Protein backbone atom coordinates (compact mmCIF):
# COMPACT_ATOMS: atom_id res chain seq x y z
CA UNK A 1 0.00 0.00 0.00
CA UNK A 2 1.19 3.47 -0.77
CA UNK A 3 1.11 5.93 2.08
CA UNK A 4 -1.98 8.02 2.32
CA UNK A 5 -1.49 11.74 1.98
CA UNK A 6 -3.70 14.75 2.38
CA UNK A 7 -6.69 15.19 0.12
CA UNK A 8 -6.01 17.58 -2.71
CA UNK A 9 -8.97 19.14 -4.50
CA UNK A 10 -10.84 15.88 -4.61
CA UNK A 11 -8.06 14.33 -6.59
CA UNK A 12 -6.74 11.04 -5.26
CA UNK A 13 -3.76 11.84 -3.14
CA UNK A 14 -1.18 9.14 -2.99
CA UNK A 15 2.44 8.40 -3.57
CA UNK A 16 4.08 5.33 -4.93
CA UNK A 17 6.30 4.21 -2.10
CA UNK A 18 9.75 2.80 -2.67
CA UNK A 19 8.73 -0.61 -1.36
CA UNK A 20 5.89 -0.90 -3.86
CA UNK A 21 8.15 0.31 -6.65
CA UNK A 22 10.85 -2.19 -5.69
CA UNK A 23 8.36 -5.09 -5.55
CA UNK A 24 6.95 -4.06 -8.90
CA UNK A 25 10.42 -4.03 -10.42
CA UNK A 26 11.12 -7.49 -8.99
CA UNK A 27 7.99 -8.83 -10.69
CA UNK A 28 8.87 -7.16 -13.96
CA UNK A 29 12.45 -8.40 -13.90
CA UNK A 30 11.11 -11.93 -13.46
CA UNK A 31 8.66 -11.39 -16.36
CA UNK A 32 5.67 -11.90 -14.07
CA UNK A 33 2.68 -9.64 -14.80
CA UNK A 34 1.55 -7.30 -12.04
CA UNK A 35 -1.09 -4.62 -11.62
CA UNK A 36 -1.04 -1.43 -9.58
CA UNK A 37 -4.50 -0.39 -8.42
CA UNK A 38 -5.04 3.18 -7.27
CA UNK A 39 -8.23 4.48 -5.75
CA UNK A 40 -8.59 7.95 -7.21
CA UNK A 41 -11.12 8.77 -4.50
CA UNK A 42 -9.20 8.09 -1.30
CA UNK A 43 -5.63 7.48 -2.41
CA UNK A 44 -5.26 3.80 -1.58
CA UNK A 45 -2.68 2.13 -3.76
CA UNK A 46 -1.63 -1.48 -3.92
CA UNK A 47 0.27 -3.81 -6.19
CA UNK A 48 -1.32 -7.12 -7.11
CA UNK A 49 0.81 -9.91 -8.56
CA UNK A 50 -0.93 -11.83 -11.33
CA UNK A 51 -0.26 -14.99 -9.33
CA UNK A 52 -2.16 -13.55 -6.36
CA UNK A 53 -5.31 -12.62 -8.26
CA UNK A 54 -7.31 -15.60 -7.03
CA UNK A 55 -9.61 -14.43 -4.27
CA UNK A 56 -8.81 -10.74 -4.78
CA UNK A 57 -11.92 -8.58 -4.21
CA UNK A 58 -11.43 -7.22 -7.74
CA UNK A 59 -10.40 -10.54 -9.28
CA UNK A 60 -12.83 -10.47 -12.21
CA UNK A 61 -12.10 -6.85 -13.16
CA UNK A 62 -8.35 -7.20 -12.77
CA UNK A 63 -8.24 -10.42 -14.76
CA UNK A 64 -10.10 -8.67 -17.57
CA UNK A 65 -7.65 -5.75 -17.60
CA UNK A 66 -4.72 -8.15 -17.51
CA UNK A 67 -6.13 -10.26 -20.34
CA UNK A 68 -6.54 -7.16 -22.48
CA UNK A 69 -3.14 -5.92 -21.40
CA UNK A 70 -4.74 -2.53 -21.01
CA UNK A 71 -4.38 0.06 -18.29
CA UNK A 72 -7.30 2.33 -17.50
CA UNK A 73 -9.97 3.61 -15.15
CA UNK A 74 -12.51 1.12 -13.87
CA UNK A 75 -15.59 1.53 -11.71
CA UNK A 76 -15.81 -1.05 -8.96
CA UNK A 77 -17.55 -1.12 -5.60
CA UNK A 78 -18.63 2.46 -6.23
CA UNK A 79 -15.03 3.63 -6.57
CA UNK A 80 -13.05 5.10 -9.43
CA UNK A 81 -9.91 3.03 -9.70
CA UNK A 82 -6.92 3.41 -11.98
CA UNK A 83 -5.53 0.02 -12.90
CA UNK A 84 -2.04 0.06 -14.35
CA UNK A 85 -1.22 -3.23 -16.03
CA UNK A 86 2.45 -4.08 -16.11
CA UNK A 87 2.83 -6.99 -18.50
CA UNK A 88 6.26 -8.24 -19.52
CA UNK A 89 8.07 -6.84 -22.55
CA UNK A 90 7.36 -8.95 -25.60
CA UNK A 91 10.15 -11.11 -26.90
CA UNK A 92 10.74 -12.81 -30.19
CA UNK A 93 12.51 -16.09 -30.71
CA UNK A 94 13.43 -16.84 -34.31
CA UNK A 95 14.40 -20.39 -35.20
CA UNK A 96 16.62 -20.15 -38.25
CA UNK A 97 19.35 -17.61 -38.95
CA UNK A 98 18.20 -17.33 -42.54
CA UNK A 99 17.80 -14.42 -44.96
CA UNK A 100 14.26 -13.64 -43.73
CA UNK A 101 15.53 -13.54 -40.15
CA UNK A 102 18.17 -11.00 -41.10
CA UNK A 103 15.33 -8.68 -42.14
CA UNK A 104 12.93 -9.71 -39.35
CA UNK A 105 15.27 -9.35 -36.36
CA UNK A 106 16.04 -5.62 -36.74
CA UNK A 107 12.39 -4.93 -37.59
CA UNK A 108 11.21 -6.66 -34.41
CA UNK A 109 13.79 -4.77 -32.39
CA UNK A 110 12.53 -1.48 -33.80
CA UNK A 111 9.04 -2.45 -32.60
CA UNK A 112 10.34 -3.06 -29.10
CA UNK A 113 10.85 -6.81 -28.97
CA UNK A 114 13.85 -8.48 -27.38
CA UNK A 115 15.02 -10.78 -30.17
CA UNK A 116 16.97 -14.04 -30.02
CA UNK A 117 17.89 -16.03 -33.12
CA UNK A 118 18.56 -19.76 -32.75
CA UNK A 119 20.23 -21.92 -35.38
CA UNK A 120 22.60 -24.85 -34.82
CA UNK A 121 24.20 -24.27 -38.22
CA UNK A 122 27.15 -22.07 -37.35
CA UNK A 123 27.56 -20.85 -40.92
CA UNK A 124 24.11 -19.27 -40.62
CA UNK A 125 24.26 -18.24 -36.97
CA UNK A 126 27.23 -15.91 -37.29
CA UNK A 127 27.40 -12.54 -35.53
CA UNK A 128 28.46 -10.93 -38.81
CA UNK A 129 25.11 -11.80 -40.32
CA UNK A 130 23.23 -10.50 -37.24
CA UNK A 131 24.86 -7.40 -35.85
CA UNK A 132 23.42 -6.37 -32.46
CA UNK A 133 21.14 -9.42 -32.24
CA UNK A 134 21.54 -12.25 -29.76
CA UNK A 135 22.36 -15.36 -31.80
CA UNK A 136 22.57 -18.82 -30.22
CA UNK A 137 24.32 -21.42 -32.38
CA UNK A 138 22.82 -24.47 -30.69
CA UNK A 139 20.08 -27.00 -31.36
CA UNK A 140 16.68 -25.99 -29.97
CA UNK A 141 16.83 -28.56 -27.14
CA UNK A 142 19.96 -26.85 -25.83
CA UNK A 143 19.24 -23.25 -26.85
CA UNK A 144 15.60 -22.88 -25.81
CA UNK A 145 15.33 -23.93 -22.13
CA UNK A 146 17.65 -21.15 -20.87
CA UNK A 147 15.67 -18.55 -22.84
CA UNK A 148 12.63 -19.07 -20.59
CA UNK A 149 10.24 -18.79 -23.50
CA UNK A 150 6.84 -17.70 -22.14
CA UNK A 151 3.40 -16.48 -23.11
CA UNK A 152 4.79 -13.03 -23.91
CA UNK A 153 6.98 -14.46 -26.65
CA UNK A 154 6.41 -14.42 -30.41
CA UNK A 155 7.87 -17.63 -31.78
CA UNK A 156 8.88 -17.87 -35.42
CA UNK A 157 10.28 -21.00 -37.07
CA UNK A 158 11.78 -20.40 -40.48
CA UNK A 159 14.54 -22.94 -41.10
CA UNK A 160 12.45 -25.20 -43.37
CA UNK A 161 14.30 -28.08 -41.69
CA UNK A 162 12.05 -30.39 -39.63
CA UNK A 163 15.01 -31.50 -37.49
CA UNK A 164 15.31 -27.93 -36.26
CA UNK A 165 11.79 -26.47 -36.56
CA UNK A 166 9.77 -29.39 -35.14
CA UNK A 167 11.34 -29.66 -31.67
CA UNK A 168 11.30 -25.87 -31.46
CA UNK A 169 7.56 -25.75 -32.22
CA UNK A 170 6.86 -28.40 -29.59
CA UNK A 171 8.69 -26.19 -27.10
CA UNK A 172 6.60 -23.18 -28.17
CA UNK A 173 3.37 -25.15 -27.60
CA UNK A 174 4.51 -26.13 -24.11
CA UNK A 175 5.30 -22.51 -23.25
CA UNK A 176 1.99 -21.12 -24.60
CA UNK A 177 3.58 -18.44 -26.82
CA UNK A 178 1.08 -15.75 -27.83
CA UNK A 179 2.16 -16.12 -31.45
CA UNK A 180 3.59 -19.13 -33.22
CA UNK A 181 4.40 -19.00 -36.92
CA UNK A 182 6.15 -21.41 -39.23
CA UNK A 183 7.44 -20.97 -42.75
CA UNK A 184 6.31 -23.40 -45.41
CA UNK A 185 3.71 -23.97 -48.11
CA UNK A 186 0.34 -25.53 -47.30
CA UNK A 187 1.67 -28.88 -48.44
CA UNK A 188 4.82 -28.61 -46.33
CA UNK A 189 2.70 -27.48 -43.42
CA UNK A 190 0.31 -30.44 -43.71
CA UNK A 191 3.27 -32.81 -43.45
CA UNK A 192 4.59 -30.82 -40.51
CA UNK A 193 1.28 -31.10 -38.67
CA UNK A 194 1.28 -34.87 -39.14
CA UNK A 195 4.81 -35.09 -37.73
CA UNK A 196 4.00 -32.86 -34.76
CA UNK A 197 0.88 -34.85 -33.88
CA UNK A 198 2.94 -38.05 -34.09
CA UNK A 199 5.27 -36.45 -31.55
CA UNK A 200 2.46 -35.74 -29.13
CA UNK A 201 1.13 -32.31 -30.15
CA UNK A 202 -2.61 -31.83 -29.60
CA UNK A 203 -5.12 -30.47 -32.09
CA UNK A 204 -5.26 -27.27 -30.01
CA UNK A 205 -1.47 -26.99 -30.22
CA UNK A 206 -1.20 -27.31 -33.98
CA UNK A 207 -4.15 -24.94 -34.48
CA UNK A 208 -1.99 -22.21 -32.92
CA UNK A 209 0.53 -22.27 -35.76
CA UNK A 210 0.23 -19.49 -38.30
CA UNK A 211 1.19 -21.16 -41.57
CA UNK A 212 1.88 -20.26 -44.24
CA UNK A 213 3.49 -17.59 -42.07
CA UNK A 214 2.65 -13.89 -42.40
CA UNK A 215 -0.28 -11.86 -43.66
CA UNK A 216 -1.07 -12.39 -47.34
CA UNK A 217 0.38 -9.21 -48.84
CA UNK A 218 2.12 -10.81 -51.80
CA UNK A 219 5.48 -10.58 -50.11
CA UNK A 220 8.42 -11.59 -52.30
CA UNK A 221 11.70 -10.30 -50.87
CA UNK A 222 12.96 -11.30 -47.42
CA UNK A 223 12.19 -7.78 -46.20
CA UNK A 224 8.61 -8.02 -47.44
CA UNK A 225 8.14 -11.43 -45.86
CA UNK A 226 9.47 -9.93 -42.62
CA UNK A 227 6.86 -7.15 -42.88
CA UNK A 228 4.09 -9.71 -43.38
CA UNK A 229 5.26 -11.71 -40.35
CA UNK A 230 5.66 -8.61 -38.20
CA UNK A 231 2.18 -7.39 -39.19
CA UNK A 232 0.67 -10.77 -38.31
CA UNK A 233 2.39 -10.78 -34.93
CA UNK A 234 1.19 -7.21 -34.29
CA UNK A 235 -2.38 -8.20 -35.17
CA UNK A 236 -2.18 -11.16 -32.80
CA UNK A 237 -0.87 -8.89 -30.06
CA UNK A 238 -3.18 -5.94 -30.52
CA UNK A 239 -6.49 -6.97 -32.06
CA UNK A 240 -9.16 -7.90 -29.51
CA UNK A 241 -9.64 -11.62 -29.10
CA UNK A 242 -12.97 -13.36 -28.84
CA UNK A 243 -14.46 -13.24 -25.38
CA UNK A 244 -12.25 -10.41 -24.17
CA UNK A 245 -14.38 -7.50 -25.39
Amino acid at each position, binding site marked *: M*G*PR*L*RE*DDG*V*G*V*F*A*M*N*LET*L*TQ*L*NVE*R*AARRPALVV*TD*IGNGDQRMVKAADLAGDPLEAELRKQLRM*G*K*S*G*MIEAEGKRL*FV*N*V*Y*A*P*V*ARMVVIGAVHISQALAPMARA*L*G*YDVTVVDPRTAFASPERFPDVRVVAEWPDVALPPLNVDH*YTAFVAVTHDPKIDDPALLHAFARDCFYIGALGSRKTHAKRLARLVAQGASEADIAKIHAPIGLPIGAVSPGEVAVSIMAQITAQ*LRLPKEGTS
Partner: protein
Amino acid sequence: MLERDEDILHAAEEWKKAGHGVAIATVVETWGSAPRPAGSNLVINDEGTFLGSVSGGCVEGAVVTEALDIIESGKPKLLEFGVADETAFNVGLSCGGTIRVFVEKVA
Protein backbone atom coordinates in the same frame (compact mmCIF):
# COMPACT_ATOMS: atom_id res chain seq x y z
CA MET B 1 3.39 -5.69 -23.63
CA LEU B 2 5.81 -3.66 -25.68
CA GLU B 3 6.33 -1.00 -23.08
CA ARG B 4 9.85 -0.52 -21.95
CA ASP B 5 8.59 1.02 -18.75
CA GLU B 6 10.34 -1.53 -16.57
CA ASP B 7 13.62 0.07 -17.56
CA ILE B 8 12.47 3.52 -16.50
CA LEU B 9 10.80 2.28 -13.31
CA HIS B 10 14.06 0.56 -12.52
CA ALA B 11 15.81 3.89 -13.02
CA ALA B 12 13.30 5.51 -10.65
CA GLU B 13 14.07 2.90 -8.03
CA GLU B 14 17.82 3.40 -8.46
CA TRP B 15 17.51 7.19 -8.26
CA LYS B 16 15.45 6.96 -5.09
CA LYS B 17 17.88 4.53 -3.48
CA ALA B 18 20.73 6.86 -4.40
CA GLY B 19 19.03 9.60 -2.40
CA HIS B 20 17.41 11.56 -5.20
CA GLY B 21 13.96 13.07 -5.08
CA VAL B 22 11.92 11.19 -7.66
CA ALA B 23 8.48 11.62 -9.22
CA ILE B 24 6.46 9.30 -11.44
CA ALA B 25 4.01 10.65 -14.00
CA THR B 26 1.36 8.26 -15.29
CA VAL B 27 -1.19 8.73 -18.07
CA VAL B 28 -4.44 7.79 -16.33
CA GLU B 29 -7.04 8.79 -18.91
CA THR B 30 -7.10 9.66 -22.58
CA TRP B 31 -9.81 10.99 -24.90
CA GLY B 32 -9.71 11.12 -28.64
CA SER B 33 -6.43 10.67 -30.40
CA ALA B 34 -3.75 10.40 -27.74
CA PRO B 35 -0.16 9.53 -28.53
CA ARG B 36 0.51 7.39 -25.46
CA PRO B 37 -1.95 4.98 -23.85
CA ALA B 38 -3.16 5.00 -20.25
CA GLY B 39 -0.53 3.47 -18.01
CA SER B 40 2.42 5.11 -19.77
CA ASN B 41 5.02 6.36 -17.32
CA LEU B 42 7.52 9.19 -17.23
CA VAL B 43 10.00 9.30 -14.35
CA ILE B 44 11.78 12.45 -13.23
CA ASN B 45 14.49 13.10 -10.67
CA ASP B 46 15.37 16.25 -8.75
CA GLU B 47 18.07 17.14 -11.27
CA GLY B 48 15.46 17.35 -14.01
CA THR B 49 16.61 14.14 -15.68
CA PHE B 50 13.65 12.26 -17.10
CA LEU B 51 13.00 8.98 -18.88
CA GLY B 52 9.95 7.68 -20.70
CA SER B 53 7.09 9.69 -22.16
CA VAL B 54 3.45 10.51 -21.58
CA SER B 55 2.69 12.17 -24.90
CA GLY B 56 5.44 11.60 -27.40
CA GLY B 57 7.04 14.97 -26.76
CA CYS B 58 4.16 17.48 -26.72
CA VAL B 59 3.77 18.08 -23.00
CA GLU B 60 6.80 16.46 -21.41
CA GLY B 61 8.39 19.82 -20.65
CA ALA B 62 5.38 20.94 -18.65
CA VAL B 63 5.13 17.59 -16.86
CA VAL B 64 8.77 17.78 -15.85
CA THR B 65 8.34 21.33 -14.53
CA GLU B 66 5.34 20.28 -12.45
CA ALA B 67 7.15 17.15 -11.30
CA LEU B 68 10.03 19.19 -9.89
CA ASP B 69 7.52 21.17 -7.79
CA ILE B 70 5.89 17.94 -6.66
CA ILE B 71 9.25 16.48 -5.63
CA GLU B 72 9.67 19.61 -3.47
CA SER B 73 6.18 19.71 -2.01
CA GLY B 74 5.34 16.00 -1.91
CA LYS B 75 1.87 17.00 -3.06
CA PRO B 76 0.68 15.03 -6.08
CA LYS B 77 -1.28 16.56 -8.94
CA LEU B 78 -3.59 15.53 -11.72
CA LEU B 79 -2.66 17.42 -14.89
CA GLU B 80 -4.84 17.68 -17.95
CA PHE B 81 -3.63 18.53 -21.42
CA GLY B 82 -5.65 19.05 -24.54
CA VAL B 83 -5.47 20.85 -27.83
CA ALA B 84 -7.71 23.64 -26.57
CA ASP B 85 -6.00 23.95 -23.22
CA GLU B 86 -4.73 27.50 -23.03
CA THR B 87 -5.02 27.91 -19.30
CA ALA B 88 -2.49 25.61 -17.79
CA PHE B 89 0.82 25.68 -19.56
CA ASN B 90 0.23 26.86 -23.09
CA VAL B 91 1.16 23.45 -24.31
CA GLY B 92 -1.18 21.03 -25.93
CA LEU B 93 -1.44 17.97 -28.04
CA SER B 94 -1.18 18.65 -31.74
CA CYS B 95 -3.03 15.40 -32.39
CA GLY B 96 -6.20 16.88 -30.91
CA GLY B 97 -6.59 14.48 -28.01
CA THR B 98 -6.85 15.11 -24.31
CA ILE B 99 -4.87 13.32 -21.65
CA ARG B 100 -4.82 13.29 -17.87
CA VAL B 101 -1.48 12.72 -16.24
CA PHE B 102 -1.09 11.91 -12.58
CA VAL B 103 2.21 13.02 -11.07
CA GLU B 104 3.25 11.60 -7.70
CA LYS B 105 6.40 11.68 -5.63
CA VAL B 106 8.09 8.42 -4.75
CA ALA B 107 7.88 8.35 -0.97
